[in-house]
């Protein structure tokens, strides 16, 4: 299950367990506190609403018939959200860095490419469904890793990058490792 959906699902399951127990007592004509049952129902309904909003936000067209279908959807959503998170993190990392070169025209060219790559990453992250797979490590080491890619050794990774993120591939193809300087945030 999605780590993101886990707390909501746990809350829902707990509320439903209590509600089920109370309804069982009602059915067995045993004494129950109806107000407590109503609270349990309200909590369960709230958890259901949260989950449904989450699913709808990720997969607006998604439908399910039962809890198993929902669990499968939630797994998918988890994967989508993970992929999106990597793209947005890398976009943020590209925004934080700085291009250095002896030629100004070259710096300008590289900044344009960087900007296109950032837009591409953010666009992919916002797109519905599962975004293209971004190869490589996490964002803070991704540029270093991408600048080191060589053909034919890293042909597969380069191909994946080229298929999913054309602008990002163009940017890292023009970028030399020493041209990228990560901005250090100076505390005010």
């Amino acid at each position, binding site marked *: 299950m999605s780590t993101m959906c886990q707390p909501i699902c746990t809350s829902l399951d707990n509320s439903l367990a209590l509600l089920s127990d109370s309804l069982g007592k*009602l059915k067995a*004509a045993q004494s129950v506190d109806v107000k407590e049952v109503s609270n349990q129902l*309200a909590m369960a309904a709230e958890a*259901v609403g949260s989950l449904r909003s989450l699913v709808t936000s990720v997969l607006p067209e998604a439908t399910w018939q039962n809890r198993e279908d929902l669990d499968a959807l939630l797994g998918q959503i988890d994967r989508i959200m993970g992929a999106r998170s990597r793209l947005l993190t890398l976009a943020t990392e590209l925004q934080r860095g700085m291009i250095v070169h002896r030629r100004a025209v070259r710096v300008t060219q590289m900044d344009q490419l960087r900007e296109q790559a950032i837009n591409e990453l953010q666009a992919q992250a916002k797109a519905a469904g599962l975004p293209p797979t971004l190869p490589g490590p996490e964002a803070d080491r991704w540029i270093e890793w991408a600048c080191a890619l060589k053909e034919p050794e890293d042909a597969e990774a380069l191909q994946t990058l080229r298929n999913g993120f054309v602008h990002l591939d163009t940017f890292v193809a023009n970028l030399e490792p020493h041209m990228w300087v990560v901005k250090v945030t100076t505390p005010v």
Partner: protein
Amino acid sequence: MSSLLPPDALASLDDSLSLPFASLEALKAVKSVDVEGIIKQLSVAAESNRNLRSLVASVLPEAAWQSREELDALLAEIPNISAARSRLLGLAMELESGSIVHRRAVRVEELNQLRQQAIIELRSQAELGKQPSVLPGPEADHWIEWACGLKEPEDAASLQALRTGFAILDDFVANLEPGMWVAKTGAGAPLSNGAELGNPAQDVREQLRHRLLALARELESGNILHHRALRVNQLNRLREEAISELRSRAESEAGSPTLPGPEADQWIKWACGLREPEDAEALATLRDSFAHLDDFVANLELDMWVAGKSPLAEAPPQREKSVDKVSSQKQRRAKTGNSDDPGLSSSPITATLKAATSTEQGGESRVPNVPDRLAQSMIESKTLTPSHELASRAKDEAQRPASPETGTTPAISFEITTGVGDARGKKWWMVIAIAAFAVLTAYGAIEWSSHRNPTLPAKVAENDLTHSSANQGLDQSEMSSDSGTHAAGQPLLTRSEFRPQDRGVVRTVPTTLSASQAGTQGGGAMSQPAIRASNDVAGVYKATASLGGATQTPGPVPSGLQNTPPNNTTSVLKDNSAAQSTLAAQKPRISAGGAQGLVIRPVAPLYPASARQAHIEGTVVLQAVIGKDGNVQTVRVVSGHPMLIQAAVNAAKQWHFNPYYQDGEPVEADTQINVNFTLQAD
């Protein structure tokens, strides 16, 4: 499902819960639900839930369940429980509405008690909150018939079920015969509740109480005869305990236990006839509820008991008793060979003269000189007073208030039993009175001279011998009795000891002395109670005279007498019987009525100080000859404690009667006197 539950109660609950359960599934699948709608349904379900719970609780208050399955099982059981309860209550009403008939009231009482207990048991089983036991058998209106027809071993299963679940009901039907049950009596108005059963139950309790009190009176009025004073003492103590027990049980607030056996006047005879193992049940009942009474009758032999009903008893004589009496008299006539004696009475009379010394003892008022007044009244009437009339008059006398006397509590009671025969000399009452006065004067002079001349115990015996011989020609056995007592080492009281001071001492000692004469002996026939009156003789005694019985069988001589020196007592026992037969052949026995009318002066015995200190109690049986002048001419000791004999003899010798007449001539008459000495604390 239970017929007591509305059919839609459970369905309503299920319906109202259907939406919440469906919503639960939707919520599990994270689907949208109408929460408001569900909450409304939950409210409806909760209401149905409460209704159902109330309904179940109304049938099974103690019922508990954990799941719907258990609830369903419980609800499925409710119709059976209701039906079982309905059956039990129906049978309880059937038992209430019927009645028991039996020839014996005591049996009816017992069965009514069992019936009441069975009804309570049935209602208890039918109470809410309990799972009633399964009552075997048909419906209530046929149940008793069915139950009375159960037999072992054929119906062992039904009987076992009945016994296991309804022990008291089983006991009831085990005791009930089909012919004893009459269903739906009382104009068909069944008793619908316990309150209506209250009166019959109270009646039963009252009847039981009366039975116990009647038996207590019966025990109190009778006498115990035995050749050993020790045994008499023992039995008297047991009797007292039994009387106390009966009274205690009768007054118990918890209700009187059932006393097995017949009515009081036949009870002792019945109880003495009980045997194990034949009468194990009756004995067990007696033992369980009346331990002291059981102890008493276990120690009592029938021939040791002489009944002497209280003359205040109001029970009319029964036919069968009359038959017994006639039979008894026939036997006595046969023994005395005096069947043609016109003096024989067909109904021996018991006269009881009684004087209480203080209101603290038995709550009886002091009535002075009742015997004297009674005798005087008889003399004045010149007729033989019937026993019941005499009893009534004696009772009236006893109830008259008297001047209280403080500080005196001991009492002495006399009972005299004489032979059969009607009163004689009623035409000669004036002559008798004059003659009695003359004899009394002479006797008083003799007594006075003996008081003035203190003697040794041996001299008392000599005096007795002289006195007796002078009047009657006392046989050797009579001599031996008195002298034998002395020879046995027992302290004989001399006449000098009967000083007025002694009487005064006794008067202040909290003791009760009683001297009684049994109604009959030999054969154990019951004496016939007739009269009880109260008198105050010297302010210290309670005297009771019981007259009745014909055949006198002398009891064994006490051990003290049997140890007399050979030269005087070698033939004591032989002579006793010989003398008895001689007496029986030569002297008529005074009838009950005659003796009753003849009594002029009963004298209380003095309780010997030594015997009192040693707590000696018992009965002294004396055989006395009433002389032609009405004085007691000879007194022969039949049995009694050596320490009490002399006092009894001395008292008996002072009794004075009108002479007994036969064919117009005064004759000597034989009689027997029993003197009971009983110590009682204040």
